[in-house]
């Protein structure tokens, strides 16, 4: 599904070039549940952003579903966001002025889904995450775990093939974290959704079936658990 070849991401300073990512080669197949780990500043988020088309590599090639991404324009990238990719963020990034219901509904609006169908899709999603009672509340009226549930629901409503989660449990306590991870696990196993998450926690990483370790912008260990 994802094929990265010799990806470089750097920032040019006056006297030197600072590499954030250097020479990354990575293959991720459909149905994988991958955890990207590494210390702060290792380039984990940047890698995830490049995979999610939010950032561009300076060098190298990126194929998504065998299509070259490095040649896409902004509008085509938006098309991919609509149809294939769902994002979950550490800080949830819900829109404060919209209710739970409206936040979940938003991706469908950009996809021009009809009103009645939208209603039933959102209702299903609320049901699935047990947040029907909260649908008219605004994000600031929810706990962190509940907000992240809404964030996940919003990412899922478009039935994406790929979910990118940047430290999804970083702001949550352990019970809430487990709940989110179990949802991911279930999605991965039952619906075959590919999941890539960035995490600092071994426990959270263990929900996945593959771990990629980054150190100073380079892959140091690809899937350490499998070697054990």
């Amino acid at each position: 599904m994802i094929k990265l070849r010799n990806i470089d991401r750097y920032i040019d300073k006056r006297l030197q070039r600072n590499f954030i990512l250097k020479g990354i080669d990575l293959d991720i197949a459909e149905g994988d549940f991958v955890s990207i780990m590494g210390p702060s500043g290792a380039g984990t988020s940047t890698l995830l952003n490049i995979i999610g088309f939010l950032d561009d590599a300076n060098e190298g090639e990126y194929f998504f579903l065998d299509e070259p991404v490095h040649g896409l324009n902004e509008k085509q990238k938006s098309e991919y966001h609509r149809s294939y990719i769902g994002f979950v963020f550490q800080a949830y990034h819900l829109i404060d002025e919209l209710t739970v219901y409206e936040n979940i509904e938003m991706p469908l609006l950009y996809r021009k889904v009809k009103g009645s169908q939208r209603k039933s899709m959102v209702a299903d999603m609320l049901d699935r995450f047990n947040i029907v009672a909260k649908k008219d509340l605004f994000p600031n009226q929810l706990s962190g775990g509940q907000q992240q549930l809404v964030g996940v629901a919003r990412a899922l409503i478009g039935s994406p093939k790929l979910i990118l989660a940047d430290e999804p449990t970083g702001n949550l306590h352990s019970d809430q974290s487990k709940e989110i991870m179990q949802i991911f696990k279930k999605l991965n196993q039952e619906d075959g959704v590919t999941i890539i998450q960035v995490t600092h926690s071994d426990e959270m990483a263990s929900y996945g079936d593959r771990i990629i370790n980054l150190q100073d912008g380079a892959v140091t260990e690809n899937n350490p658990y499998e070697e054990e």
Partner: protein
Amino acid sequence: MFKNYIKIAVRNLLKNKVYSLINIFGLAIGLATSLLILLYVLNEWNYDTFNERSESIFRVIQTMESENNVEKEASTPFLLGPVLEAEFPDLIQKTVRFYNLQETSHTFRNKQKGVSFSEENFYFVDSTFFSIFSANLVRGNPNEALKNPGSLVITKELSEKYFGNEDPMGKTLNYKGVIDLTVTGIMESWPNQSHMEIDLIASYTSLNEMYSSDQEYDQSWLWNPIWTYMLLKEGAEPSDLESQLPIITENYFYAYSGWPADETVELSLQPLTDIHLHSNLDSEMEVNSSVLYLYILLVVAGFILIIACINFMNLSTARSLERSREVGMRKVLGGYRKQLFYQFIGESFLICLIAITIGVILVFLSLPSFSEMVGKELSFNLFTHPATIPGLIVFTIFVGLFAGSYPAIYLSSFEPVQVLKGSVVQGKKSALFRKMLVTFQFTLSVVLIIGTAIIYKQIQFIQEKDLGFDESSIVLLPTKQNLVAWEFETFKEQVLSFSQIESITALSKIIGSEKQEHYHYVPEKFGESNDELNLALHTTYDFVETFDLKLIAGRSFSKDFPTDAKQAVLINREMVSKLELNSPDEAIGEAFYFFPTNEDRETKYVIGVLEDFNYTSLKKEIEPLTISLVDGVIPFLGLIEYTAIEIAPGNPSDALAHIEKIWKEVNPIDPFEYQFLDDRLTEIYQAEDTMSSLSLAFSMLCILIASLGLLGLASYSAQLKEKEIGIRKSLGASIPDIIKLLSKDFLVLIAIANCIAWPFTYYIAMNWLQNFPYRFDVYTNIPIIFIGSGIFIMIIALATISYHAVKAALVNPVDAISNN
């Protein structure tokens, strides 16, 4: 989707109530102000267009030129109209002449009821009037009403004034005790939006009866008291006619036996609809307005609108932080940049729509007082004119686009990666742009304040300037050819019998006013063939005393010198220089020819010299002047128009009652009407006065809107620096330190704004002041005005900023730090 946008927009508005109020009210005030100005400008712009054929109606004007004198005149000789009609039948459909006997007041009397009034807006007109101008006759036949001698058409209002509830048709009004005019038609009141004012019109053919003793009265081509209008035939171009007009000047004007040899004349056509705004000739029917003032007002309206739009831009971009996460998230969820752009532009349309609704309400509320201020009957109705609502919509869209596009471009440009990290740093670019906009706003405000101050100062200067004569406590009575004129000596004697009457005289024109006369009075030393016209005034005895004029040589007119009656003339100091004499004393005894080339030439001798005084208005320089004495009934009837009475200071009512009593004894026909000279002189500067109060009001609004914007920005910057303030306070900063911290940036911007505004305003102001021969002392006053305006703006800005600075400074530092 649309619903979603609206929801977000409305919730954002409600969430930030202060910003929303500033945004919406700033825009609403700006929109309302520009709408009011637009109404005023449109009203001025559409003068005379109520005439259905206004496009084809032209006025003939003439330019007389002699060696050192050019006069552009709005009026023409008597016979020009009929001659043009006869000479160019292919081009001209019809012509119409207007004649008011060159008098400004006309007495009409209903003999049956015994009521009489004096009317200003009366003309003798040709019967073609109704087929050229669109007057609405309620009674009478437009083809017949002005045909026969002695016919009169009056407005409904006047019908009520003279006849009450009676039917006036067929009844008579006596004109000046000279001729009975029969009412043959009643018309709707003449629209205000016209360069002419009409209350009564009589048939032109009546003039033959008025002038029964002199049937040659209209033969002169030199005397030009007639306003001539024409309706061109369909398809005829005014230029076609204009190119042939030299034939007329050649065959009629120059062919006239009395035509001065070195004087040339040129005829031209003036579109009817241009007169009100573009014509400022001699002998206009009424004082016209100037298109320059409309441009100034439009610029001011533009300024105010721009300032309001800048507020909107600044507040929207300043607060972008709060919307940035939404932008990033929407992009991540698949929103195109274009969609986000439309969303934000849509939000600004929504705000504009709310603002314009409030603005329209404000217009309705303020229209009555605005109308009163500008002296017009302005009306604003959403539904009477089909273009109003679409116009407002276009206006809204325009403002929405103008104010909304920069924030929309800026906000929709955020990169999700950057903004979703949660640590958006305010773009330096946008902060710089915002600073530039604030500077621009305050530059406009400073320009307006200084402009207002200068206009105000100049108007005040003109109104207070010593005219060289005493204009206070002088009562003017119209005296042209009425019974008081016949019995002036009796009248004078009886009026003077009352102790509060100081002095009484009579004169040809009101001194200090626009209207003036030039006569063919020339100094002997310049030779007999000299053709030039000089400014001249005719008075009776006691003129110098009544107006407290200063005699610098010789003496004033006196009955002790019997020769004065025929031979005495006074001149002013300017005339002394013109005579190339070294001192006023040398001028005594200088001879003047009156009508030197004429058979009835008179020679008069200078008996006194007066210090210069502003015989014409302050819009003109003082010119050389001769003042000659009128003695005897016949010259009095021919030349004198007003009686001037100086009454003792204090309550004038007793004196006025006395004068009225005498007036009624001497002149039972004409109503007693008076005007104080100082009031009369104030009217001359009406246009400037209106401008001055308009610009004062508008520049205040401008500052208000700009301050509103500053208030918003200051509150925002206080919010941004909350943490910094907290830290500084915990390190021991005092409240003034904090105020300094927050105000410094803004004050620098305002200082820059002043630096930009000053030279620009100075240039414009100097150009404007060039229009006035008499200006306030520019070099001592301008620095005060400029620096004063700068300080004024600074104080207002500081006060605005301090509100938030103090608020921020008073917050407990712990709260501020821990919040972040």
